[in-house]
């Protein structure tokens, strides 16, 4: 049971802080009703909803980012054991990187990174 005391204390502290924020807000506010307003458009009103579709280019960049993000995930445990396993691990990792890099070169060749 004693194990949970720090957890409870932390939770209580968190709740107290959040509660204090709300309390200060209530105390010093000049108007309870929040201001509901469209975005600032230099004195005009928006004609279309802000939710809109992105250009397809962003998806290519997203996929590239995901590939390298996953690579980093693999690299963390690899970095821990690379010294023990030795040359074999280094070769494997760089082969993996080369495969990913082939993807980048392909995207590049197809013009996926061309912006204008």
């Amino acid at each position, binding site marked *: 049971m004693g194990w949970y005391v720090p957890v409870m204390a932390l939770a209580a502290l968190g709740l107290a802080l959040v509660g204090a924020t709300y309390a200060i807000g209530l105390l010093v506010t000049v*108007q309870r009703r929040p201001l509901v307003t469209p975005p600032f458009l*230099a*004195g005009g009103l928006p004609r279309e909803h802000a939710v809109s579709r992105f250009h397809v280019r962003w998806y290519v960049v997203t996929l590239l980012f995901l590939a390298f993000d996953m690579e980093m995930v693999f690299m963390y445990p690899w970095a821990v054991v690379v010294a023990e396993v030795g040359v074999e691990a280094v070769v494997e990792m760089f082969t993996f990187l080369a495969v990913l890099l082939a993807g980048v070169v392909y995207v590049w060749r197809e013009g996926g990174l061309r912006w204008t």
Partner: protein
Amino acid sequence: MDLISALRRAAFTRPNLLLVVAPGATGPRLAMERFTREHGWSLADTAADADALVEIGELDEPLTAVAEVLWRQLPRPAVRLSLGDEVGVGEALARLPERLRSWRPTDEPSEEWPEPPMADRAPDRDGLRLDVLRVPLGPVLPYWPAGLRLVVDMQGDVVQFAEVELLGVTGRTRPYWTGETRSAARRLDAAARLLGVAGWTAMSTRCQILRDRLLAGGTGTFVATEVDRLARRVRRSPLLGAMLRGLAPLPGLGDAHERLSNWLAEVARASTADEAGPPVAELLNVLPDVVFGAELSVVRLIVASLDLDIAEITEPSHGGISHG
């Protein structure tokens, strides 16, 4: 309630102002800018940032509608002021902090805003179909010409179409920048705007200070040497050069960087009277073509680099008197 009044006193010592300026009301605008600079106040970039909405000059119907929209967007406590000429500016502004502190909530009805529809698509320059957003730029934007509204069609952050709307020009609108001293001050004002949009705020403020000094009858030689120093720093900045070189080149005027250098050089040489630029109507005609294909932030730079004074648009209609 001492806490609240103490907080209010602290919060409203230096209020942020949002300006709605009528074209030609440059005199009161400059007085306003001088006051805020000298008192360490600042001008708000957006409605959410502002404590007071200041209407400068005589607003016509469309500009009043703009002020009305902004007033409903200002978070309370907020104060709305109207300034006709430079005389009352200091007095009206000096009372502002007190008015904000004594503000009490009113029973204003809850705001109802129309819900806009989803954006529609159109072919874009890559041969794809992409959302088109119709976005007004101006009339209330930092460093933006008074009375100009540039309505642009955006696809992503690229301008695909633009049209110019003029607001606030009435029969009584008169251009402010007339005569030799004011022409020189105008160049500094334009430089201050362009540098402000470019993000070089310190230099922009420096230009404003020199502008005000010139208008207050400051001696030409001191201002000229100061402007000369300033011009050299501006010319040497590689970052500013990268931003402005090759931007919106116009026949006879050069690109944005050359225009900025020329403004400052003119003031340094103290010879602006004989170098009037093309009429504003002509610039407004080419503006939609110049901003076509530009990115949103670049549009702001282009507009600032053209030094548009909408108040001048009234001149041709005055019985065809032209500068010859």
